[in-house]
């Protein structure tokens, strides 16, 4: 049975209704819906000319510029599976993703060196500038036969960090891009063509992909793209210049904006502020409301479920809560034996809905563990539900969600152990400055002194090897680490 092609759904109506309206802003430039449609079709043709068949994976490693939606939607039009990997990823992760997804073609930016050094000359490369392919030698043939996907065809795949440090591919079908628009964008956020959407989260994250690609195109709105690092100074500058009506961000960014504000009040143009990626602390919600007069709509979603399944409703947001279960989803809170817990008790959150991914790419065992036969997905999050509102209470595994990124303790521990002063270590979630961050518990090698400069030295050591959000914010030095009788580190005993 065939389904609609999500790219056609997202492009064609806008081409009819308002071809010259800006689909995207990036810096001082705009890309109209007509230009976007033409560039996507040209890209789909380019893929065909490169011999990429429907179902083949195309690895896209691009910053948030016009080239990303062009390449991503071009893949969907041609039937290829767009594998979006972050431009920030380190070489080790890119190497793994490239091998795991089996792409025969890489789409990358001319200014990014890492993706090309990872793949060498193993596969074809389409190099892009900010607008799309640099050497588009194909004259614009009309591409008027978009691929008609079957119900089994995948449209795209994102990678989510795994507890062992290796990312897991999460494939999705075409409707995963469209359903959140109806369930969340239209019914809950009331997005219309009048909206200007700004997401500080990038396209390579499921939150950013839906915010900056699905929502604006589905409703004929305009999205603002920001290529650089999402620090609060750049974000406030964009908000001041472009005046978005909806701002999607993460608790770390809201916190940084609050902390950087010297004034007592902050006047902002948005009608909605949304948060996801990690639990929004009540203190951040309340301070933001005091500072700006606006509530933050916190929600929880996942790469596996495509987007939010629990979210606060505009005008009724509750501080410290992730919100209510959205229509179209079912949730269960269960104990470790899979039995439902009574209301008001903590339980492991299971969720099901039509936007769920069927399995992890090439990980049958992990898939069986997470994607249950009854259609529920194990989120790994512990929640408590009171009067229909869900409250996050932590993780059931050792993974840490810091700055809206997954951090595997194993990865950070490996980096720390490569320092000569570290005999042994463990990394666990610690709460500092209203947010959850990685904390390190270190046993020093015999003869090493705990000098005043050691903490800075260990931080610099980790920073040089891993993305900065993985760097522990607190170091505690211990005689020994808590372990099980079989020698396994008990990280849960170190959470603070």
């Amino acid at each position, binding site marked *: 049975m065939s389904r609609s092609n999500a790219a056609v759904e997202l492009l064609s109506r806008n081409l009819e209704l308002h071809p010259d309206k800006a689909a995207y802003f990036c810096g001082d430039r705009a890309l109209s819906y007509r230009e976007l449609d033409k560039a996507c079709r040209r890209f789909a043709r380019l893929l065909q000319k490169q011999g990429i068949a429907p179902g083949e994976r195309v690895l896209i490693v691009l910053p948030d510029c016009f080239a990303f939606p062009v390449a991503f939607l071009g893949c969907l039009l041609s039937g290829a599976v767009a594998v979006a990997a972050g431009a920030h990823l380190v070489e080790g992760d890119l190497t793994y993703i490239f091998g795991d997804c089996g792409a025969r073609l890489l789409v990358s930016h001319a200014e990014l060196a890492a993706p090309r050094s990872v793949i060498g000359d193993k596969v074809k490369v389409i190099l892009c500038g900010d607008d799309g392919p640099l050497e588009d030698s194909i004259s614009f043939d009309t591409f008027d036969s978009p691929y008609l996907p079957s119900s089994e065809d995948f449209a795209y795949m994102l990678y989510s960090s795994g507890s062992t440090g290796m990312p897991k591919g999460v494939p999705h079908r075409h409707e995963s891009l469209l359903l959140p628009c109806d369930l969340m964008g239209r019914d809950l956020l009331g997005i219309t063509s009048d909206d200007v959407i700004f997401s500080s989260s990038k396209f390579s994250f499921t939150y950013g992909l839906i915010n900056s690609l699905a929502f604006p195109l589905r409703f004929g709105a305009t999205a603002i793209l920001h290529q650089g690092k999402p*620090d*609060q*100074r750049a974000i406030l500058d964009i908000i001041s210049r472009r005046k978005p009506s909806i701002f999607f961000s993460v608790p*770390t*960014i809201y*916190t*940084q904006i*609050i*902390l*950087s*504000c*010297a004034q007592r009040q902050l006047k902002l143009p948005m009608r909605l502020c949304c948060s996801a990626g990690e639990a929004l*602390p*009540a*203190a*951040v919600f*309340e*301070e933001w409301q005091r500072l700006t007069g606006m509530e933050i709509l916190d929600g929880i979603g996942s790469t596996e479920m495509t987007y939010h399944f629990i979210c606060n409703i505009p005008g009724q947001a509750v501080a410290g809560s992730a919100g209510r279960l959205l229509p179209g989803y079912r949730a269960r809170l269960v104990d470790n034996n899979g039995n439902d817990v009574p209301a008001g008790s903590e339980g492991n959150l299971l969720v099901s809905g039509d936007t769920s991914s069927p399995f992890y790419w090439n990980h049958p065992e992990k898939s069986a563990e997470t994607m249950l036969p009854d259609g529920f997905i194990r989120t790994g999050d512990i929640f408590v539900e009171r009067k229909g509102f869900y409250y996050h209470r932590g993780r059931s595994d050792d993974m840490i969600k810091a*700055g809206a990124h997954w951090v595997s303790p194993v990865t950070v521990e490996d980096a720390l152990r490569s320092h000569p002063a570290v005999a042994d270590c463990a990394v666990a979630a*610690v*709460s*500092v*400055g*209203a*947010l959850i*961050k990685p*904390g390190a518990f270190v046993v020093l090698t015999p003869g090493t002194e705990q000098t*005043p*400069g050691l*903490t*800075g030295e260990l*931080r*610099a050591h980790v*920073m040089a090897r891993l993305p*900065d*959000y993985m*760097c522990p*914010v*607190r170091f505690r030095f211990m005689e020994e680490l808590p372990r099980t009788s079989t020698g396994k580190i008990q990280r849960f005993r170190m959470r603070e």
Partner: protein
Amino acid sequence: MNTIDELKELMLKIGIKECIVNETDPAQPLAGRAMDSIDYPAFIAAVEERYGIIITDRYSLKLRSLNDFMNFINDGS
């Protein structure tokens, strides 16, 4: 050594460059100038450890400058 100097020493300890520490105005917010989203919690953790205090979520959002930290440490306000 006064409290501001002690706090600047803690900034150095968590790895913030000396030139940035020296230029830090105690009256101005640290975020976005002297510290990013990674440095800030590391600084809070260092202050808690150095002075044996716990900075709650709510207070942590009000401590924006070195002067704020100094007042909190010295007066608890």
